[in-house]
């Protein structure tokens, strides 16, 4: 196995990593979607059983299978992450384009970035979730409204670089309109950045979703979100039910790490200038 890996070049290795992480992620989602309700059902005879071959992650105080709950929770986290990352990327693109308009707009966008970065992230999430009364919408909107600053900064810097490029200046002097330049010169360069930024937003969004749900502001307690599972497990830790917290958290870690791996390798593949610097 090791011989095979070292024989591949960087490009082939990157593509292999991308494909493998996509396969595992698809596996998590499809198994989360395919689990039918009776795997989640209450079975009091099996309650509080330690991990075994039948219940790989053990069961909780109501006899529910933790593996099924964890997979459902991961799928839920991923959908929240998808929505939040999508909206956040949209906001980032919009603000970056706005910043390229003129100097005053640029100052405004920079000020807005500073404003959002000046309040601790969790506090801002609590505030937004409080304003929206919690729940699924509160989390998604909160995550969408707080994850754009770093990507906006990146896109803005990229755009400033392109705008000062020679061919853009020539294009301008040839009489092309700003919209034409934005569409034909700037936007194509931003697409890889945007796509990679979108993927790399996932890990942050998912971790923050779990954190805010854990604190009690996010998804409601009936849903098997990872944050809910972990905050419920706190009540049973002192009685020694370690598997209630260990496996769901570990699964979350693995999923987040996979998204991180996917994003970084896509960066190496699509944006070699930035991606291959280590």
């Amino acid at each position, binding site marked *: 196995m090791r011989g095979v890996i070292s024989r591949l070049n960087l490009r082939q290795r990157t593509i292999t990593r991308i494909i493998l992480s996509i396969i595992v992620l698809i596996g998590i989602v499809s198994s989360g979607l395919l689990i039918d309700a009776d795997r989640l059902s209450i079975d009091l005879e099996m309650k509080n059983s330690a991990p075994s071959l039948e219940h790989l992650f053990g069961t909780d105080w109501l006899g529910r299978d933790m593996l099924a709950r964890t997979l459902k929770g991961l799928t839920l986290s991923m959908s929240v992450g998808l929505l939040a990352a999508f909206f956040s990327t949209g906001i980032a693109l919009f603000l970056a384009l706005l910043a390229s308009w003129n100097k005053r707009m640029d100052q405004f966008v920079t000020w807005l970035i500073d404003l959002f970065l000046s*309040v601790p992230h969790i506090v801002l999430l609590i505030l937004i979730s409080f304003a929206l009364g919690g729940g699924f919408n509160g989390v998604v909107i909160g995550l969408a409204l707080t994850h754009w600053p770093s990507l906006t900064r990146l896109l803005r810097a990229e755009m400033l670089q392109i705008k000062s490029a020679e061919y853009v200046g020539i294009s301008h002097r040839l009489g092309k309109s700003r919209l034409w330049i934005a569409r034909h010169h700037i936007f194509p360069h931003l697409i890889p950045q945007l796509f990679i930024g979108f993927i790399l937003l996932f890990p942050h969004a998912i971790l923050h979703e779990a954190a805010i749900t854990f604190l009690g*502001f996010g998804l409601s307690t009936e849903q098997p979100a990872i944050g809910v599972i972990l905050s419920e497990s706190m009540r049973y830790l002192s009685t020694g039910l370690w598997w209630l*917290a260990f496996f769901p958290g570990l699964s979350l870690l693995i999923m987040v790490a996979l998204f991180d791996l996917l994003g970084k390798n896509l960066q190496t593949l699509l944006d070699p200038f930035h991606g291959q610097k280590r």
Partner: protein
Amino acid sequence: MHYTQIARYILKKTIKLATLLIAVSILSFTLISYSPIDPVHSYIGADMTRVGPEQREAIAEYWGLNDPPVQQYLNWGKNVLQGDLGTSLLYRSPVADTIAERFLASLALMGLAWILSGIFGFLLGILAGMKEGTWVDRLIKGYCFTLASTPAFWVGLLLLMLFSVWLGWFPVGLGSPAGVLAEDISFIERLRHLALPALTLSIAGVANVALHTRQKLIEVLESDYVRFAKAKGENGFTLVWNHALRNIALPAISLHFASFGELFGGAVLAEQVFSYPGLGQAVVQAGLGGDVPLLLGIVLFSTIFVFIGNFIADLLYKVIDPRIRKVDI
């Protein structure tokens, strides 16, 4: 030195803080005014049936809830400028007192974790940078990248299970033993309660500093003056000590100061896991219990906290680094 320049710098930063606080307060006030959570309802709580609609109306009138939001904001802002942040609904005491008391507990936690993660992150970074490409480097890098995907509160839960429940070395939660008067608690007791939350918080903080230090050290080790020192026969720790340490220490310290926001966020989660009575726990309770004055107070306070961290980081770059100091501030 250039006193006018220093004065101008301080003035610029003060104006920045003032505009920032005004913007943050307007933003949070607007958000809260849209909240479906009724402050009168959350104030009365379980006694809802015993309080008639007239009394509720009287409370709303007394708090000025019937005024338009802009008027409410101006009233609140006027009080804040006079040092009155209002009264916390949950703790039934002035918000400023609550924040001060809670922040002291949080400061012990965050300060300890901050120093620990700084020292260990720096050491790990140096080790990884010196041994670039070896298994030590890969191990440290892998550890840092894994940490970036780890939910910090889960680490807290694991530590709690391992050290408190299983091994029984540390207490399960709270900031002090239950049922003991505050003046009877020994320093050692407090430290034992502080240990696990601080450890949780510092484990999460190590990654950033370590990766940054590693990167900087590798850059420095590739420089000409280090090559010259190597040619003279210096190597290993003496080389790093003599030629690299001062160069990489300043950016690392600056970076560490600039991470106050993440530190605060981590403290919120760690305090929740360990039921540690700090500011982070207070903001969670304020949010869940609809305690608007306390929530607003903590938002403003945490903004100032983060600002101070960034300000010190900026100052370190500009005033202490002789290369930047010479240009101008």
